[in-house]
């Protein structure tokens, strides 16, 4: 499968990883020799016989007739990205880029969180909201920080996400932030009836917001409460909107679709750390390439004692918890 990415947002992607990239040129809608599914739909919907006319192409980009993003050709993808960038730039009154950086070869992302250090300050929660353009109202949080009682250990039945404290950590408590565990064996992907969510080669599980029908099967299937539904039209203040977006990540969503943590796909595929890693004041959050023996994450796996949540479900998370002390 050819993957495309758009020009302005490919910084950090090694040259050559981005073949077939449309670059910063205007989108090209080349006529295809065989009618595609999309064109068939166009015709079926009563479009003019010339299914590649601009009107119909517009419909297919952000509209109802579009195919699933990962099945599209490179120039169709580029066209959609350009259209989305234009749409969001107008809506938020600033230049917004919508990228689709492909996975880096030889990379499989892993995350580790030091629960002996986390103090439950929730900096990660709000950094994530700002980076990933989550809805402020209704509030959507991709990270849930659970306060647990030290004498009960990791016991969800006694966990509390709504702790209200003057200062943290509170005596007698420890904290367990939970977000998408990017499972190697993801039950959410399995359950989706339309294949709107899938695992990328670098391990990130993504959602095509334009393909999701909003049935919420994945939310029932997820053992970590990591998937969130837009119960109303997401509200993002224009001045707080992060304009650097990825199609499969932090681009603004619409109501009625499911979203989730992507390890900040728009950052990590450009070599940056996820926002939650950078913001953590105690350095409890670690991130890197599982296939790189010199990475921080491999150091943790090899030198620390790690565990994953709900091992018995065989989801095999790429998100590890460890005791740093």
């Amino acid at each position: 499968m050819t993957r495309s990415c758009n020009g302005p947002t490919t910084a950090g992607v090694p040259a050559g990883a981005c073949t077939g990239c449309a670059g910063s040129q205007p989108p090209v809608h080349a006529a295809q020799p065989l009618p595609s599914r999309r064109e068939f739909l166009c015709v079926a919907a009563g479009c003019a016989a010339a299914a590649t006319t601009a009107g119909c192409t517009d419909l297919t980009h952000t509209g109802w007739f579009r195919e699933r993003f990962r099945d599209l050709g490179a120039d169709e993808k580029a066209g959609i990205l350009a259209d989305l960038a234009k749409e969001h730039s107008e809506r938020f009154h600033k230049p917004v880029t919508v990228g689709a950086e492909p996975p880096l070869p030889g990379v499989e992302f892993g995350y580790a969180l030091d629960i002996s250090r986390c103090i439950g300050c929730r900096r990660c929660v709000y950094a994530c909201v700002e980076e990933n353009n989550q809805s402020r109202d209704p509030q959507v949080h991709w990270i849930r920080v659970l306060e647990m009682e030290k004498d009960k250990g990791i016991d969800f039945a006694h966990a509390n996400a709504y702790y209200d404290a003057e200062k943290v950590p509170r005596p007698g408590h420890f904290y367990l932030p939970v977000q998408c565990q990017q499972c190697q064996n993801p039950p959410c992907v399995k359950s989706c009836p339309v294949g709107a969510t899938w695992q990328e080669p670098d391990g990130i599980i993504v959602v095509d917001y334009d393909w999701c029908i909003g049935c919420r099967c994945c939310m029932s299937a997820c053992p970590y409460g990591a998937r969130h539904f837009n119960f109303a039209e997401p509200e993002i203040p224009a001045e707080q909107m992060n304009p650097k977006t990825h199609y499969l990540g932090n681009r603004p969503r619409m109501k009625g679709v499911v979203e989730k943590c992507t390890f900040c796909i728009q950052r990590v595929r450009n070599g940056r750390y996820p926002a939650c890693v950078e913001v953590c004041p105690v350095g409890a959050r670690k991130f890197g390439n599982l296939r790189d023996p010199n990475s921080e994450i491999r150091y943790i796996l090899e030198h620390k004692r790690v565990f994953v949540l709900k091992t018995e479900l065989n989801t095999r998370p790429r998100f590890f918890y460890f005791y740093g002390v």
Partner: protein
Amino acid sequence: MGTIRHFIHFALGSLRIVTRGNLLYWLWVGLLLVLIAAGGVAYSRQLGEGLITTNMRDQVSWAFYIGNFTFLVGVAAAAVLLVIPAYVYHWKPIKEVVILGELLAIASIVMCGLFVLVDVGHPERLWHLIPGLGLLNVPSSLLAWDVIVLNGYLVLNFVIVTYLLFSLYRGRTPAKAFFLPLVLFSIPAAIAIHTVTAFLYNGMPARPFWNASILAPRFLASAFCSGPAVLLILMQLLRRFTRFEIDDRAIWKVAELMAYAMFVNLFLLGAEVFKDVYSNTEHLIHMRYMFVGIGEHKAIVPYMWLSVFCSFVAFLLFLVPATRRNTITLNVGCVLIWLGVYLEKGMGLVIPGLTPDTLGEIYEYFPSQVELWVAAGIFSVGFLVFTLMVKVATPIMLGEFALDRRPGQPAPVAH
């Protein structure tokens, strides 16, 4: 060509039948239309503002709509399963039982489809489910399988019932070689729709309350109670208001079978309660939420006990020959069964399965006004579909609406 002309006559005649009726008929149809309109208003609000108008949230992401869907899959399945005793016990009006059962199945599946439609965030994208145009994620997604079996079942029942009624209308004996295999096939298909629906929940290890292998058998057992309960009431109504003949013994036999099914249902419930309570693991929490509540969170507890009470009393009423043969206690039993299973499937399956959520949070769900009105609208659509179909089917079965009657001559409609 004759067939097509006959079919047009059949369709026009059917239209005539459903547009004529007595005051009671029109009051009933009018009530349903009003409820449908109210449901439509509620749904348009939901479409505009989003599912925030429901009381579903991330913590309880499936609820009343999907509970109703599950219950109605059971009704659809069990209605057809009545064919088995009809064959086994050689009831006289076997065709009629088959037809009524399949009509109920059709109406139920229509409601199932509508409940899924109102539950999704993007109903306009449902074409993504159509293989070829969209992408149906088989074999891995059980919801995808459910889409296949439910649509297949709808088509199957529609074909059977249309064929039977049209044959009767034309005064021909339905070709057994054609419809019997279909009827027989509809039996495993009925089991399949409810099993796949059970597997939809069952296949989610994230939700220990559902991840019990007893779930599919329980679904079938409870469906065997709720589906026939509707038909029993319907058969009595038809017997009363039309020349439709149905032997008391057939009704008693169905009631007796329902008693056994309810016994199995209660037994399986008891087996689940035992396993959870005796082993007393962290998974007990869902059962606790259901029957005693957790702390101040006990919104569904009274409904769950009401469900058990209804089911148990109905079981006794149908078990004792004297009470299942008494019209009043029989019908009380039917209503109790319906209520018992409705509460069990509609609220007692989905909501405790998701409460507390996977990270232990308790969000106490109770349907919102919008959800209740939308559901009322959908049930009204189902009842209306069923009413209209029965209105057409009854005179055909009684031989009052047939091809040999002169066109223009008003069909002698019962009522």
